[in-house]
């Protein structure tokens, strides 16, 4: 988007899509440095144009490979594509091996493609805490489409639902557990279900299973969740998937509510609540006071019920209540 006259040099360069500026801005947001709030307020007038597509699903189902095939088509259309690929951090060391890019090698060299790997940094929810902001900064830098690949852990549903316009839930055939995971709630957020690896046996069976599960769900009048078979390796079904994503976008942009970064306030509130919970947990675990051990003791002996103990702990840990 066109910069305004009084925009700062970094912002002008960012809006022009300069790769190095975008990358440094992402780092600042990810590390929550002092510059982060400057960046957020600077880009605020320029966000809300990109289509945001989320790919989620169990580990190894082929999310990265499928994203690779999906962005191939977008590039052919001349679109600018940003990819945010989240991999888990080790809970022990805090380190991570970020390997999603390996499967995206076919396009990573293209000028139109910007890929950033993120470690989840142990933020529950399958995304990293900064993901929504990184989407915004990619959007401001002129990406037409931002694709997010989440950690394939079961809990990413809600967060990806708040960030992405279109949620693609990927699974692969023949994995009983996989279907199990899908039952657990991820089905609710799926705008599109993909059975990837359809070159393998049992794919048709999995498609049938998913369709029958979907039939139990309340259908929305505007959109009935399709089940698409793809082979990300062989490229089959990807054109169809791309078309369906587009249709979904058209459908949802006609609706006023729930489109765009949906309910941004809601998203911020959830983020704040999660972060506050992290802080409280940390404070409690470090607290060596008499009161804490009295409470624990009372719970152990059955003299205090859980909910009362929690009330007392929360009150004690909030500075404003002290």
């Amino acid at each position, binding site marked *: 988007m066109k910069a305004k006259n009084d925009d700062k040099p970094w912002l002008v360069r960012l809006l022009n899509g300069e*790769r190095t500026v975008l990358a440094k801005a992402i780092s600042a947001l990810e590390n929550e440095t002092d510059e982060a709030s400057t960046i957020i307020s600077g880009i605020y007038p320029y966000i809300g144009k990109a289509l945001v597509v989320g790919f989620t699903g169990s580990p190894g189902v082929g999310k990265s490979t499928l994203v690779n095939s999906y962005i191939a088509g977008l590039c052919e259309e001349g679109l600018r594509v940003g990819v945010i690929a989240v991999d888990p951090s080790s809970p022990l*060391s805090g380190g991570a*091996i970020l390997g999603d*890019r*390996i499967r995206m090698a076919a396009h*990573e*060299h293209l000028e139109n493609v910007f890929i950033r790997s993120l470690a989840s940094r142990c933020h529950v929810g399958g995304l990293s805490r900064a993901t929504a902001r990184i989407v915004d900064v990619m959007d401001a830098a002129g990406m037409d489409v931002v694709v997010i690949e989440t950690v394939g852990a079961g809990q990413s549903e809600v967060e990806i639902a708040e960030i992405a316009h279109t949620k693609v839930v990927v699974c692969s055939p023949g994995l009983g557990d996989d279907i199990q995971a899908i039952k657990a709630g991820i089905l609710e957020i799926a705008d599109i279900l993909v059975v990837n690896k359809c070159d393998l046996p049992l794919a048709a069976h999995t498609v049938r299973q998913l369709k029958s599960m979907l039939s139990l769900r309340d259908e929305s009048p505007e959109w009935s969740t399709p089940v698409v078979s793809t082979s990300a390796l062989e490229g089959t079904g990807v054109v169809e998937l791309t078309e369906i994503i587009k249709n979904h976008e058209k459908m949802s942009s006609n609706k006023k509510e729930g489109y765009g970064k949906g309910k941004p306030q809601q998203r911020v509130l959830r983020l704040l609540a999660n972060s506050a919970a992290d802080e409280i947990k940390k404070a409690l675990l470090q607290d060596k006071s008499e009161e804490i051990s009295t409470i624990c003791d009372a719970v152990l002996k059955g003299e205090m019920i859980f909910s009362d103990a929690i009330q007392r702990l929360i009150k004690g840990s909030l500075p404003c209540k002290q």
Partner: protein
Amino acid sequence: MIEEKTTKEAFKPRVLVTKIGLDGHDRGSRIIAAWLRDAGMEVIYTAPWQEISTVVKLVQEEDVDVIGLSSLATDHLLVPKLMTALSEVGYQHVKVVVGGIVPDADELMLLDAGVSKVFHTGSAKNDVIEAIGALANKARNSSSSITFN
């Protein structure tokens, strides 16, 4: 141990572990990647056979502090080209280390070209981790190309 702060994430070195050239033996780079992860670093890991231009783009996008290149055949002879390519885009603050089978004469040539360190086979885990951690710190502190204000 990196001290934990409550408002900001502790600094996590970002290291690219990759291979340029034609050799596809990636056992060495896999081991190094795991060491660095276990030391708390974030490792961007790629397949072997990377083009130099792709490595440069990747370094920019991922905002890495250190590039670790594994060379078991003669891939290290391409490293000076990478160094040139990095400085052409103003990324000379990024530190480059090479590990694997590097003859002594070539080591001098690499250091001359701006490589920060060469690890020979049998390098101790702790030495590698410490050196890369220190280089990452240096790189992060000297990259001041863009200020957001």
